[in-house]
């Protein structure tokens, strides 16, 4: 399937938008009319909608690393972020091997799953990589850093949508020892680098008391080669900003104050993270890709089930969670807007949109 890559921006004039196909395949994260934390991890395998007869040409879960119409524009935005702040990409010295593991994982998956866009030719350690959408052709020696313009993790994640955290596994814990983080929901790699799983999750309310992290860590420590896992997370973002980092809070935080009943449908976005987890073969590290999908509220409510459910989720969200997700300030405004799309009718089970 040919993808028409869009020219669009995630800053200044915000020309980002979703095509009808992108709306249809959006990973809506709520499988019921309310939301609470859970260890909502499942195997990362292609799934088809269970609760609908609706036929979808593809879903964001079909490929190891989903490539969509925003690919080229997202990579340009990453380049801009890195030029301003190189510390968004860091790798502690012992993580270079994990970087090679990640490069191999992404290149082999993309070349196999998108043969019209990517090619990888391997002759022993001599590799030849072709990335058509970005116009890149690179010959290099695998495991020889001197043959690439960047370290292996930075090289491949400048060509792959989503943030990446490389987690070293030792002492029955995971350590945030490398990453490429330019599209984050208000967390900082520069702050978290070197922290363990409990330390970097310390700001999350409620979940610690619920024992969520102890169980989640146990699951993650046992993720095996060949059996990746995934979960979805979500928040709301005013304006389609990929870079909502603490480093740039002074730039985007104020934009939350610009929301009005008139512009909400266009400005407010549901931001969904498709988080996946892969065990890496040589380093025994875990890679944690965090892929961000955004949809404006006006596009979201074109699926009646999503409009009804979004209203109920925001209405019943515990206050601590609303605070943590940065929704409190605009909560009444959002609820008022969404209430027009909730007629009180029951919603079907599962997250997928209904057949129309």
């Amino acid at each position, binding site marked *: 399937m040919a993808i028409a890559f869009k020219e669009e921006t995630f800053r200044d004039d915000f020309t980002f938008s979703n095509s009808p196909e992108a709306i249809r395949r959006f990973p809506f994260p709520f499988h019921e009319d309310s939301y609470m934390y859970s260890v909502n991890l499942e*195997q990362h395998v292609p799934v088809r909608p269970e609760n609908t007869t609706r036929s979808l040409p593809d879903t964001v879960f079909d490929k190891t690393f989903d490539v969509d119409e925003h690919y080229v524009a997202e990579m340009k935005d990453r380049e801009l972020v890195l030029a301003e702040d190189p510390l968004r990409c860091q790798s502690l010295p*012992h993580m270079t091997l994990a970087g090679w593991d990640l490069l191999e994982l992404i290149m082999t998956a993309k070349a196999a799953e998108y043969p019209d866009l990517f090619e990888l030719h391997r002759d022993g350690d001599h590799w030849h990589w072709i990335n058509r959408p970005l116009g890149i052709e690179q010959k290099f020696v695998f495991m020889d850093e001197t043959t690439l313009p960047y370290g292996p993790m930075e090289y491949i994640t400048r060509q792959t949508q989503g943030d990446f955290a490389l987690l070293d*596994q030792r002492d029955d814990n995971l350590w945030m020892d490398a990453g490429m983080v330019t599209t984050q929901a208000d967390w900082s790699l520069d702050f978290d680098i070197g922290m363990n799983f409990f330390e970097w999750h310390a700001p999350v309310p409620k979940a610690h008391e619920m024992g969520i992290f102890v169980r989640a860590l146990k699951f993650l420590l*046992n993720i*095996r*080669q060949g*059996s990746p896992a995934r979960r979805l997370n979500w928040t709301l973002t005013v304006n389609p900003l990929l870079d909502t980092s603490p480093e740039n809070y002074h730039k985007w935080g104020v934009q939350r104050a610009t929301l009005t009943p008139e512009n909400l449908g266009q400005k407010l976005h549901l931001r969904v993270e498709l988080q996946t987890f892969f065990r890496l*073969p*040589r380093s*025994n590290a875990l890679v944690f890709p965090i892929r961000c999908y955004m949809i404006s509220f006006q596009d979201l409510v074109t699926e009646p089930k999503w409009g009804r459910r979004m209203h109920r989720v925001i209405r019943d969200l515990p206050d601590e969670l609303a605070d943590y997700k940065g929704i409190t300030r605009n909560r009444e405004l959002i609820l008022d807007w969404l209430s027009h799309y909730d007629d009180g009718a029951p919603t079907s089970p599962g997250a997928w949109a209904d057949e129309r």
Partner: protein
Amino acid sequence: MSGGGKIPVTVTEVVRVNELIKRFKFERSDGGLLPTFSGGAHTVVEMQDYGTSRLNPYSLMSDPADTSAYTISVRRDDEGRGGSLFMHRHVRPGMEMSISNPVNLFPLDLRARKHLMIAGGIGITPFMGQIAQLSAISGRFELHYAARNPALAAYASELSARYPRQVHLYFDDYDQRIDLQGLLDGQPLGTHLYVCGPKGMIAWVRNTAEAAGWPREAVHHEEFLAPPSGKPFEVKLAVSNKVIQVGEHQSLLEAIEAAGVDAPYLCRGGCCGQCETDVIDYDGTFLHNDHWLSEEQHAGGKKIMPCVSRFEGKTLVLDR
């Protein structure tokens, strides 16, 4: 979910290494490449032992970068439950078998400035993969390998020939002993210590290192427990609504699997925690053999690790 990622393989070589050890080579039956792995990883080999299904973990000892084949070494245990005997007696070149994706519970700490390895007997195998991995990236290591005598010291001569400065051998029959205290005293800052061998050796190394002030995080060990035999017992599986019998030479996990119930596992040796199971009710005594649960949990009667632990008494009901 438990056996995820099984790989069909063909045995392509069986080599008698010495009077106790045989080496087995596996290649993918479909002719493809095996997954790359990290030094210290193991694979779980599935054996169809004439009606009994056995799943035993063995360290991968080939070069992790060589994805054309995996090799393992198996020490024959005449007193054991039969897995090693099956491998020694019945596995021949050309046989089709099934192995798991590699799992590493004994990885190198890649922050280490030097890797100090202590091996006893068949405990040499995980170090073979680690040394291959380290030598490819010019990592610094030192191996101290103790065995009963030269004839039983598998791979000792190959290792010494290849790494003459890094490999040190000790033979019990010649009264040679590792001067552990001296060895630990002389290490540069940033050294990590690894031990794999008999239970007594692991305890000796860990205790000596702890007494010498080594940080816990810098001392790594791997010990696979074989599930011990014991008296047969009966278990009720509440979720699947089945009553099963655990045989004398069968582990509880094996009995659960034999009843057709899918249960999670990873190491099958009492150390990874994956098979941890909740106890709903019991009247009797647990025989805990794992390294995973705490002493309080062992005393609490609420958890059991079915891969190595057993039970004696009237009633045991599990949440499985």
